[in-house]
């Protein structure tokens, strides 16, 4: 019997079964993929919904006021926004140069046998949970900084307002240092992938002119990879903004804004972590939701920028690492 002899309208049981199976399976997989979009919508929706009460009450002023008085139900987010940015800035200042330097070392300078072990160590660093950094922070880093490092900083640079004031060991600077340690692995990984994607032909052009290794890196690699490296830094910023546990444990949890880096402070993530279970009134919970919304907005915006920049110069591996 020829295959075309069967009437077109009637599908065979085999065809019918597999077509149905194909359809169902396809829809299942599509649902899985669409889950990404759904998750985004879900997060945005729930946070907006939960913040509604607070947003109605405080409006945009919420973002610029710094009074935090739960008893009288007066709330302002400024101290947390301030603290979030200060710790993130400190973290970036420390982590980005170190990460780029390490990435350069791993890509062009390190002996070949050393590269994979170093990369593995950095990957393991990325696996250390935030709460363990916080634990180490409280009991090891804080006493060390309080006793040995901060007094020196105050002695040498005390003329700057950021280094004035009483030293407790906890505070903005300590939180910034711990966050720096935590974002080092990812910024290094992404930076490394970006440097690796610079075509070798570029390096050879510089070598052929008699450039030294560093000159080759400067002229052919770093300039080429500038945008991607900036994206790696922005990615680090996104991570830094959202770090919660380690920051909560070493920042001191103080709702007042202070110019001194040695002073205790608060960040958006850490205030949510601390206050959520204490919050009893609908308004206080809604305020925390709104803080979460601000945090979400910030991190999503920064992450979008970072992902664009990384994709501007990248191979598929870079995108996965991020």
């Amino acid at each position, binding site marked *: 019997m020829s295959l075309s002899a069967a009437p077109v309208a009637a599908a065979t049981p085999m065809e019918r079964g597999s077509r149905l199976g194909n359809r169902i399976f396809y829809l299942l997989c599509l649902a899985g993929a669409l889950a990404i979009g759904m998750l985004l919508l879900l997060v945005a929706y729930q946070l907006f919904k939960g913040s509604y009460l607070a947003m109605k009450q405080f409006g945009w002023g919420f973002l610029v006021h710094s009074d935090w008085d739960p008893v009288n139900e007066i709330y302002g987010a400024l101290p947390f926004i301030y603290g979030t940015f200060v710790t993130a800035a400190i973290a970036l200042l420390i982590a980005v140069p170190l990460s780029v330097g390490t990435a350069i070392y791993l890509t062009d300078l390190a002996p070949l046998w050393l590269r994979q072990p170093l990369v593995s160590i950095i990957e393991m660093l990325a696996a250390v949970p935030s709460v363990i950094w916080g634990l180490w922070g409280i*009991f090891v880093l804080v006493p060390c900084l309080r006793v040995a490092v901060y007094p020196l900083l105050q002695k040498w640079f005390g003329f700057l307002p950021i280094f004035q004031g009483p030293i407790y060991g906890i505070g903005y600077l300590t939180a910034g240092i711990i966050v720096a340690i935590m974002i080092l692995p990812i910024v290094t990984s992404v930076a490394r992938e970006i440097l690796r994607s610079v075509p070798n032909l570029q390096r050879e052009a510089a070598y052929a002119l008699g450039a030294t290794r560093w000159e080759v890196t400067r002229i052919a690699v770093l300039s080429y990879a500038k945008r991607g490296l900036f994206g790696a830094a922005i990615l680090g910023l996104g991570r830094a903004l959202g770090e919660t546990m380690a920051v909560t444990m070493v920042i001191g949890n103080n709702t007042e804004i202070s110019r001194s880096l040695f002073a205790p402070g608060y960040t958006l993530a850490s205030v949510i972590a601390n206050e959520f279970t204490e919050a009893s009134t609908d308004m206080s919970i809604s305020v925390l939701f709104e803080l979460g919304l601000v945090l979400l907005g910030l991190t999503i915006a920064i992450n979008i920028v970072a992902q664009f920049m990384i994709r501007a110069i990248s191979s598929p591996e870079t995108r996965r690492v991020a």
Partner: protein
Amino acid sequence: MPPMHSVANHHYRKFKNAWMNTLAIACALLVISPLGFILFYLIRQGASSVNWAFFTNLPAPVGQIGGGMGNAIVGTLELLLLASLVGVPIGVLGGIYLSEYGGERINDWIRFWADVLNGIPSIVWGIVAYALVVKSPVEGHSLWSDAWHHLRVVAHTLVGLPMKGFSAYAGGLALGFMMIPLILRTTEEVLVLVPRSYREAALALGLPQWKTVVRIVLPTALKGIVTGVLLAMARVAGETAPLLFTAFGNNYWNRNLAEPVAAVPLQIFNYAISPYDDWHRQAWAGALVLMAIILTINIVVRIISRGYKSN
């Protein structure tokens, strides 16, 4: 010789090269040294406290010795299981879509947003799970909240999901949300590596596409998918923030997934910020155990992958 090949210039460039080399090495050393510090202190402070009692006992009240983290360890396992129930099916199916069905543009979009999701602070997932499952339902504002409310009632009847309050389900949900974009990306990556000829051979034999994927492609990529899941589990096992107001913690054994449950990172946090030395000691022990689990998973994954890649 032209004037520029001066000896001074040459030496300057050599010096700068050597100096930059040194700086780069210094950066690398600084970047890897925290791992040494952490492992050193974990072992130093925690090793002596890790004993059988630690693994089997419940937390003891302040002042009493012999407390352990047995319930937290079991709790973490429960949470990982629940999270995987949410994260693995959705993530894997999504990864299959990207690799087997998706077009280039939509795939780029999905990957982009998955990466953005991966960058969201984990505490936000806790807030979402709280809003969905922990918070007592508010009067229906919209069609969605009514629908969700009905779903919760169903879940309450079926599995005892409480209409209000902290539970292991809530914690598992929060962690599960986190796992979805992670597993989706890793699954896609390994599926793409399966040679097209396998699929074509199966289709040529008359297998429908869905069977090709399920019976041929997935098993081939299974090792890679499993390692991706393991890595995602290692990642969420250490998360504390999403659990703070979902799983909430528990000083006793968790009898019922609809109740609050202890978890190792939560316990570490609570102990660490307490004023009691004995609890601090136990925090270190818990951290050591947690770190050991996470590192073990990472090393196991590495070993599996090496065998996988050399195939």
